[in-house]
């Protein structure tokens, strides 16, 4: 089962690896991303960042959705990380997930900053609004010790 799905443009890094895995009590981290499987250096970095005692899976978005639907992931308590909001929404819709954690998105000039670490394009804001009306909750929270803010309060 999926314990949490998180958007974090840095994917797997110390902050994620240590604090979330510990707080969630998960036994499997899934990096769901279409580009990273072709990026040798990024894969090596991810392999090094993996905390001891946790399984690490790297899948394309579609492959992950297929795996989750097939039932082979049922035995895992999963922490799923996507690089961007579009990917997370795609997975949430396909698998009926009600809540998405927003951990960090890349700062870019054309984006609007809504919290310390979350920057959104107009398209992403619209996507979030659309998902919110469908009942999906977006929580802005960098690390487990931080306060949770519902994205509705920030838009």
């Amino acid at each position, binding site marked *: 089962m999926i314990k949490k799905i998180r958007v974090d443009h840095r994917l797997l890094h*110390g*902050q994620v690896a*240590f*604090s979330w895995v*510990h707080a969630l009590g998960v036994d499997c981290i899934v990096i769901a991303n279409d580009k990273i499987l072709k990026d*040798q250096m990024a*894969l*090596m970095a991810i*392999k*090094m960042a993996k905390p*001891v005692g946790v399984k*690490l*899976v*790297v*899948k394309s978005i579609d492959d992950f959705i297929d*795996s989750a639907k097939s039932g*082979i*992931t049922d035995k*895992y308590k999963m922490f799923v990380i996507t690089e961007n909001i579009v990917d997370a929404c795609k997975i949430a819709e396909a698998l009926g997930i009600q809540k998405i954690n927003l951990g960090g998105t890349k700062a870019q000039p054309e984006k609007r900053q809504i919290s310390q670490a979350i920057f959104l394009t107009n398209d992403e804001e619209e996507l979030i609004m659309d998902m919110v009306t469908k009942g999906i909750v977006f929580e802005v929270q960098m*690390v*487990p*010790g*931080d306060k949770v803010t519902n994205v509705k309060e920030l838009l």
Partner: protein
Amino acid sequence: MGRTFILASHGKLADGLRRSVEMILGQQKNLVTLCAYEEDGYCIEREIENIFHTITEDTDFIVLTDILGGSVNNEFIKVKEKYDFYLISGMNLPLLIELLLNQTEEDTKEYIRRALSNSKKTIDIFEETNSADYMDVFDF
């Protein structure tokens, strides 16, 4: 019994380490820092006394210093008979994270030994490997 961590360094390392660990794990309650010798006339003996006197609750003290054989570490050794604490030298971020995250009920000395052993493995040189060799480990 709870555990209180005292980070002690020459200059700002202890405060910096605290900021870094809190960036990763969020705010930490049982963490005290001692940044020694920043000002003229700084008296480390007095600062050490202050720490042990201000924390009155029943707790295990774990002192982490910046370097073995350094004066900060030596000053804590001097008061080892007077106060009850565990003293670790060579503090760093992985060690502190390990200590803060994996707090078990076991004997504090055993818990420290395990944290040291785990975090020492994280000091390493990056070696490039062929991703074809480990792609299978990324699958369910």
